[in-house]
């Protein structure tokens, strides 16, 4: 069967590498952008190729410093969500007693319909400007869906004949969980993780955009977009440069996730 022949993997890696590299290495490449050094919203060229923002800070320097929070909060949030949600999901799926399963998963079900926006806005208002609080809030809203996803996938695997066979073979619970169940869970998780990171990046970005997140002078990409949006026509780079970073990251991530998925499907077929 023919497959999507986009130059997916290399392009995905390249797209992902730039924003990730900027986020990771950026802070070492440039001094933090100092306010008031240049004129506000000066157009690009010469000393500051991407111009300046409303506080007269070099957009390039901001860009180099703004990735850590923009991506870090989202990635951290998804990591926490998977650590907690994944553990709960696996535990619930492997619970020997039905009530144990219910006890683990029902409270999360309760959280599921909680409007994400509400949680984020309450947390962001309450702990203004704290990246950890916002990341935790984003993680918290992601825990229930992750737990459910992992539980469903694990339950599928855990109640199947393969698991039964492993149990009859005397495999330990831990090994069944880690080896078989976790591995069967892996492919839905791989599929989910790309979207989830994208959503988390957007969620963190949206909070910042709405002024509910970090403080308004932070170099964060989403904050930069929000702060400079009024000058979109005056000094487009102040908005477009951080926006491009975010878009590149998510496009690259999705390309890569698609590719991994296609590959895992192929290896499953080609026995």
């Amino acid at each position: 069967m023919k497959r999507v022949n986009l130059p997916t993997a290399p392009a995905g890696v390249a797209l992902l590498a730039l924003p990730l590299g900027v986020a990771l290495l950026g802070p070492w490449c440039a001094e933090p952008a100092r306010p008031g050094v240049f004129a506000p919203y000066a157009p690009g060229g010469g000393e500051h190729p991407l111009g300046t923002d409303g506080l007269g800070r070099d957009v390039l320097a901001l860009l180099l410093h703004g990735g850590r929070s923009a991506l870090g909060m989202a990635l951290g949030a998804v990591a926490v969500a998977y650590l907690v949600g994944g553990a709960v999901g696996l535990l619930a799926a492997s619970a020997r007693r039905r009530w144990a399963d219910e006890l683990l998963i029902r409270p999360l079900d309760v959280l599921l319909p909680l409007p994400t926006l509400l949680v984020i806005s309450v947390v962001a208002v309450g702990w203004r400007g704290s990246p950890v609080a916002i990341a935790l809030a984003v993680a918290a809203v992601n825990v229930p869906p992750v737990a459910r996803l992992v539980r469903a996938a694990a339950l599928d695997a855990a109640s199947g004949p393969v698991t039964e066979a492993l149990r009859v073979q005397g495999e330990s619970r831990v090994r069944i969980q880690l080896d078989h169940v976790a591995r069967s869970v892996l492919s839905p998780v791989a599929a989910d993780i790309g979207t989830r990171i994208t959503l988390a990046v957007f969620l963190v970005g949206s909070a910042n955009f709405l002024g509910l997140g970090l403080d308004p002078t932070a170099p964060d990409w989403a904050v930069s977009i929000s702060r400079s949006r009024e000058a979109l026509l005056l000094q487009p780079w102040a908005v477009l440069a951080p926006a491009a970073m975010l878009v590149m990251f998510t496009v690259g991530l999705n390309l890569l996730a698609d590719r991994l998925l296609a590959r895992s499907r192929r290896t499953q077929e080609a026995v």
Partner: protein
Amino acid sequence: MRGYALQRLALGGVQLALLTVLVFLLTSLLPGDAADVRNDEDATPEQVAALREQLGLDRPALERFTDWAGGVLTGDLGTSLVSGGPVLDVLAGSAGITLLLAAVTLAVVVPLAVLLGIASGLREGGRLDRAVTSVTLALNAVPDFVLALLLVAGLSLRLGWLPATWVGVGAADLIARPALLVLPVGVVAARMICLLSRQVRAGMVTVLRAGYVTQARRLGVPRRTLLLRHVLPNAAVPGIQELARVGDNLVGGVLIVEAVFAIPGVATALVDAVEARDVPTVQGLALVVAAAALLFSLAADLVSHRLVPRTEVLR
């Protein structure tokens, strides 16, 4: 089936009840209360205290909550601490527009996404699939707030084709000027179409490879029937499950759109209420939004349950 639906409904009720407790706890964690927020620099501490007493904020939290909860059971969502009017009025004032926005968005999203997903999933790797996959992938990667900014700057401010805001727009204007809807709906719909069509496509690709589809094809079932009766019901499940999550996406997208286009909807009201520490309003709105999201996911579950009955067998 009916038993399943009733069970889900009952669960939904419990969820809502616990949710209100949670929302109450969350909002009471916020620094300051409505009395603090409502007064600006010029209020004296005595005035703040008087206001606090007048709003009943000096009563114990538990008492306030039980009062409110008792009211909800009789259909009374309480009184706004800000306007002094019923929360229901706040809701009525904002829900209409949001509902309209959501409905139009869904009406655009669902058929389009399903069609795109089917078309691209049918010929995996074909030219159409590649085109659709690339476009949805790219569009999906643009945060809604960026998309909204760029569209407004380009289409409204530069080209002047579409209105840039909803400032001063009433319900009647919407009917007279449907152009108002284009940008907000476009922004919310863009990413939802991407998410949904990708799910539908993935479902199609998986199901098209399943043994039973192969067998049906072997038995000579023609393309159309194969697609409609054998492939779609199974392939739709991930899409429908995605749709169940759309509730949340929709709220998030609508909030951004409401902020950018100055649309006075539920999301805006919710954020306003949080900022004003108007706890009864926050609770009322959260309750309604959550109930809507719950109903949505319940409907999606019932439909996928109907389509693939096996799902119930899993515990």
